[in-house]
């Protein structure tokens, strides 16, 4: 497997210039993701309006994979319903672990396509946690609300 399948241009771009890289002053939900293996920490901020994700952003430091994954996640989740986000997470998880997931509905096909560049990590088992860190933090934020929580990748 070529390294370039992991570090595609789109990953390097999002890794070096992450989108939605900012703190939200009054998010409805927030959580920290922590990868104890490497010490990386990111915080995911979320503002829900009813069932819809009005805003999602993140901040923190990490490797190119975790930064790019967080960046792509925020771009894709903005405007989605929680049910759609759940479907995307399951689809994404299957992509990066090489597992099975129910085919995403037609309406989310574009989004799944945009997550494709991260599928390279499935050849690097030690790096799967880097790719899923932001998504786990997103999920933890949904569960914990504005009080905040910390999820670990272990």
């Amino acid at each position, binding site marked *: 497997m070529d*390294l*370039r399948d*992991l*570090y595609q*241009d789109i990953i*390097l*771009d999002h890794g*070096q210039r992450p989108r939605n890289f900012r703190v939200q002053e009054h998010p409805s939900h927030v959580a920290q993701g922590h990868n104890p*293996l*490497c*010490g*990386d920490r990111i915080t995911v901020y979320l503002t829900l309006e009813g069932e819809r994700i009005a805003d999602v952003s993140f901040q923190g*430091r*990490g*490797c*190119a*994979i975790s930064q790019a994954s967080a960046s792509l996640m925020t771009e894709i989740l903005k405007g989605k319903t929680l049910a759609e986000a759940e479907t995307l997470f399951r689809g994404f998880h299957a992509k990066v672990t090489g597992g099975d997931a129910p085919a995403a509905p037609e309406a989310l096909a574009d989004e799944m396509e945009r997550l494709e560049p991260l599928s390279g990590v499935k050849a*690097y088992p*030690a*790096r799967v946690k*880097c790719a899923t860190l932001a998504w786990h933090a997103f999920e933890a934020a949904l569960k914990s609300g504005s009080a905040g929580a910390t999820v670990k990748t272990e």
Partner: protein
Amino acid sequence: MTPVTPVRPRQGGALDPRAIRRDFPIFERNPGLVFLDSGASAQKPAAVIDGVAEYYRSDYANVHRGVYRLSARSTELYEAARETARRFLNAREAAEIVFVRGGTEGINLVANSWGATFLKPGDEVLITELEHHANIVPWQLLRDRIGFALKVAPIDATGGLDLAAFEARLGPRTRLVAVTHQANATGAVLPVEAIARLAHARGAKVLVDGCQAAPRLPVDVQAIDCDFYVFSGHKTYGPTGIGVLYGRKALLDAMPPWQGGGDMILDVTFEKTTFQDPPARFEAGTPDISGAIGLGIALDYVEALGRDAILEHEEALTSYGVDRLSRLAGVRLVGAGQRRLGILSFQVDDIHPHDLATILDRHKVAVRAGHHCAQPLIDKLGLGATTRASLGIYNDESDIDALAEAVTAAQRMFKR
């Protein structure tokens, strides 16, 4: 036991890493492997691998129990390994050598036996900012039970121990100083003789964590004048699951057992049990017999190469590495004070250590990325994570060159 792979004596001369590599089957099975992670765990010479297998084939039985000859032979081999470890550390007597699971268990043993008995509320234990988690967490756990104060001596601006600040933190209530001989995250070597002198002058006991130093430096516990010294077999070219705790005889004699079971008792009734003398008192249950024997073989192998020759080799290769890496633009070595040995911890601008380690791995260069189980130190240095190349007896300049070239390749890939 007939050694399958004889340990070739090479006493006196300089180390020949190419010849040494031929003693380590891992390099034959993984052609092109550039192994720079001996600080996490070292590879094993065939003498150790075959020696352990041969012991199971020819001489295996439980120790200290059977009256039959095989058990006696097994006991002899196990005790011979203890004598080898005594020689390796220059301890006064073999009874001062306790076999443990590794450095971590050695420190936990001292905390739970000596510490739990002799430390009182209001006492102080002094460690340094350069410690591995294994020499931090056991003291925190014990502090929470007993209520003594855990003090931390800081590093100076160069990344070495600030000896003056260390001395200033020694007080009349300091009962124990627990310091690393060599910091695993940066390679900084600590002046343990001076530390022991200062500590003893205040009446404190001294524990030295030798996990990184034992495979690199000649260690003489009498010259250091420490009260406890621990190291791990697996970092010293021996098997996993075995390590050594050296304890000054008078201290071990005064310490209660920390685990109960077979082998550590003299007499058991349901009312009262009396215990063996050290070291048996601290080796409850069936020990890692093959691990101890394998460790003995590994220590013999290291002695045959020559401890001074190994130190010279590590020093020369460390300077070469410092020089080679410093000349790469965008690469910054993490400070290790006045004396750095065998470990090169560094950062590369705009490339996270995890990404770097993945890319290096594709170039067959094995390094470690992260906080190296020394999170407080890495936090203090404001780093988050580093990439660490650590050296062993089988490394030479070609390994450093491969590392430098792979770093350059990573920089090219990340440059946009």
